């Protein structure tokens, strides 16, 4: 009886597994076809000389990549932009969230003000930015009112500043909402206890709120990092395939190299970028785990 029951259970388990696999099969096939298999194909392309011969060249493509001036330029620009824009996006949105949490007057109007850029289509934003930052645009008019000379924003070394402003304007609202939600989840009792104990606002911020915000901080940082790569869309619309050197991003490099059918270089660049992203995110996860460990416990 027991054996029969065991067999029956085993059969039931097998049936469940088989049945589940069948249900999952279409999705798995799709993921395999569009994500997993292409991933391995990219790896293959990165280690051969060209698709015709298919000779294995080990790291030659990567060495050539790191010797390529365009790739170095694109990587530097992307890194510089991320280093500048992401911390600003995180810190500023946190400050705004804290400010709005402090129940200032016109709070909901401010919230609407920061959230409305999310609704504006990218193409419209780009058009407006082109007008604002044109050599004869509104920003230069304002600057010249104060006696300074106008700046050729998009075709000079100041062009990253334009895109950073655009990035912040577009993304602060969403980050702010995430922080506001996280702030509202901090247990009131702990804050009240801190008040009773005589803790000041700065202490409360760093020793209590930040600890509770650490998962959200991680998420917002990763999200902003991803968005910093997606800023290529706005830059492309603003400047085309070949912007002035300060705005030449990794994705420009990949786009253009793809058009030249240089799949080896493209594959190598994609792998380098993936490794960099994995490393950065791993570091962030470790930092969050260490910093917010006691909160999780």
């Amino acid at each position, binding site marked *: 009886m027991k054996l029969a029951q065991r067999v029956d259970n085993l059969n039931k388990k097998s049936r469940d597994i088989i049945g589940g696999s069948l*249900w999952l*099969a279409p999705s798995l096939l799709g993921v395999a076809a569009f994500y997993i298999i292409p991933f391995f194909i990219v790896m293959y392309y990165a280690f051969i000389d060209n*698709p*015709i011969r298919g000779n294995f060249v080990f790291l030659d493509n990567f060495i050539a990549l790191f010797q*390529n*001036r*365009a790739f170095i330029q694109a990587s530097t620009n992307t890194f510089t932009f991320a280093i500048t824009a992401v911390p600003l996006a995180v810190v500023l949105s946190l400050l705004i969230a804290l400010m709005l949490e402090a129940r200032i007057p016109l709070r909901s109007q401010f919230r609407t003000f920061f959230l409305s850029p999310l609704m504006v289509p990218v193409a419209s934003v780009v058009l407006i930015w082109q007008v604002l930052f044109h050599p004869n645009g509104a920003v230069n008019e304002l600057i010249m009112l104060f006696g300074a000379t106008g700046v050729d924003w998009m075709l000079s070394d100041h062009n990253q500043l334009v895109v950073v402003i655009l990035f912040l304007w577009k993304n602060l609202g969403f980050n702010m909402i995430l922080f506001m939600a996280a702030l509202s989840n901090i247990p009131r009792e702990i804050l009240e206890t801190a008040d009773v104990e005589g803790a000041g606002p700065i202490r409360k911020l760093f020793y209590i709120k930040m600890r509770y915000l650490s998962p959200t901080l991680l998420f917002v940082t990763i999200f902003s990092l991803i968005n910093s790569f997606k800023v290529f869309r706005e830059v492309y619309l603003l400047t085309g395939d070949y912007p002035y050197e300060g705005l*030449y991003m990794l994705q420009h490099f990949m786009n253009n190299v793809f058009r030249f*059918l240089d799949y080896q270089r493209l594959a190598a660049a994609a792998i380098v970028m993936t490794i960099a992203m994995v490393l950065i995110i791993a570091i962030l996860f470790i930092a969050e785990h260490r910093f917010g460990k006691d909160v999780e416990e």
Partner: protein
Amino acid sequence: MKKIIKRTIVILLITVMSATLLASCRNNEEGLFEIPEFVFVPEFIDLPAGIQGIQHLVYTNDKVFYTTSEVLDMDTGYTVSNIYSMNIDGTNITKLTGYIAPTPMPDAIGSVMIFSMSVDNNGNIWVLENGYFYKFNVPDNFTGEEWEKWEYYEDLGSYSGIRKLNETGAELLSLDIAHLRPGSNDDYFEVMSFEVDGDGNVYLSVGTGNGNIIILLDSNGNKLFQLDMEGFNWVDRFIKMPDGKIAYPDRQYSEEDNSMTIFLQVIDVTIGERGEVIDLPQTAWDIYPGGGDYLVVFSQSNALYGVEAETGETSLLISWINTDLPDGYRENIIMLPDGRIMLTNQSWSMIDYSSRYELIILTKVPYSELPERIVLTLATLWPSPELRASVSEFNRSNQKYRIHVVDFGEFIITQDDWNAAITRLSTEIIAGRVPDILDLSSLPARQYATRGFLADLYEFIDNDPQISRSDLMEGAFRAAEINGGLYQLFSTFTLNTLIGHPSVLGSNPGWNMQEFQAVLDANPQADYPLGQWLTKWSFLQSTIMFSLDEYVDWTRGTTNFDSQNFIQLLEFANTFPEDFDWGRGRSIDWDIGWPDDNWLSEEELIASGRQIMVRLSWFSDFWTYRQYLANFGGEIVFKGFPTEDRNGSSIMIPSSYAMSADGKNKDGVWEFLRSMLMPDWQRENVNWIFPTNKTVFNERLEEAMKEDQYSDSTIIRSTLATPSPDGDVMWMPPEIKPLTQADADRLFALIDSITFTASWNMDEGLMDIIKEGADDYFNGVRSAADAARIIQSKASIYVSEQS
């Protein structure tokens, strides 16, 4: 029950979802370089001796009829048409002795020729005959030369007639179309084409003084109705549709998007109006009636295409180059009911300029039935006449190899998309399907070479028993090298340079921008220093194109657009007009035409000192060299475009061919490619352009050094030093003299000094970057230095991406 239904639906959904994942696995087209299942094999029909051309070819009731022309009197040019009949298999060629051309004006000079021919369903032949007549009213006591009779010439007008003939050529019916003339006999009236439908109705395309019209007559010549053509459109050919209706190709131009649509307009006899419209591709110009699955077929230089009756889609029927036909002009195409195709082919000899007509029947046979040979694939986009001739000759003569040509121009025709061809070829190459031979004429040779797709041809040249580097124009091949290797083989080349008189430009070849500007400053009278028709962009574009190596180093991936040379070049380009002022400050009434005094010949400008140099962008023959030597008073210097290294001349390669680096039959490919370097081949196929075989080059140079009909020292010529003060002096072009040894040495020195190959297919991306930056300067938005800085920033990224 419910459970079973549910499970069945779920299984069906899973199957459908899974099946969509397999969509990308379909192989809807065989690999482009795989051997086709069928080919068309030509059979040449022996024609009677003396046939000078086949004008019309029609088919009915298993018989083919065609017309030829025969000159009976060389002095008067009296020519007659003959009609021949032939069985569908090419046998039993018979001249229709019953055909006698009409003689409407027996005492006049001139003849009536068959202008067009058709057949009806009863096997009767219909002919449209046109003729022009004149006479000489020479007085009885005339004793002058033969050519002086033309002073007594009288035009007697034209004749047009339509007749129905039986199968012996005898007349059955003559239609009077004179009554169709709308005005008097002096008014313009010409029947340009005609056709007969299944019911014997006659369709005429007529040009009149009031515009072009279509007139429909019944089989007895009674007018049924008339259709007016819009604007200047006319019908040069009616098309008989498979259902017996008649249509004509028409075009409509849209000014909005500057596009042309081509369509077939069917004429509906039942309603006496235009009927159905069938869209055709934009490239359907030479249209013939269809047959089998095809509504109509149209011929291009590279292939025959068909418009499918069921779907209206255009598909490739025959790639001419793969039929082993001699290269030539194909016309009179008939789709026979048994699936074979009959046509005429006219080819020309480049040696004696004689032409040859052939009547050919193409039969579709399985590829497996052909004699077994190793197949070499060749990818091309619109094969040149030389390539077509070479492939045809190779396939007919070589017993071991056969070349199968894949013409990517097919994708332009069938998909109506000009970029489709390059995209498709690039995709095939990246997928690893590389042809044995590539026609690089429209392809990025440098990119393919640096990616390792192409073989170094120097290895083959150096090991060839018959040809070596010294047998070729080495300077031209050196200029085409990429990283020391030769990856493209070419039989012709041209030169790009700036020329002028050494006393004005300096005797040393080459200069930089400062020296160039100094010459301009020293010649203030030269208001057209480089000639007319130049604008800011045209000058800048051509200068950069022809001296690109001055600004771009593809090997190191660096650019030099922020150099002083380039800034000065921008500033000089800015001195030209934005657009050329055709009226030179006056408005032109185009209805009246170009004012005589608006035209300034280059020779006059040079002779008067208003033009001091010439920008030669297609310097390709010795005649041009002789001409410019004459224009500049017998001496010129090849200065090239101004560059820092003072080496601003370049070569251009009109067409070149490459070998796949990974091909399995490199020996066979080399057998084909080397033929284009042989002297005999270049003598036959290379004309009016510099050949790359040194023997042929020297032969042509020697010809140019001989006295010939163009040298006539008895005519008084103007010289460089005697411009006319008041402009009223009769000016004669300078004498064209033979080349001297010094001229020859100068030319060789130029070719040997060149290190750069220019291309009309210059990187579009790079040119766009330069234009965008230059336009900002030309429009006053930025300074030249600022524009150069921006161009340098963007161009350096562009170039380093590809290095």
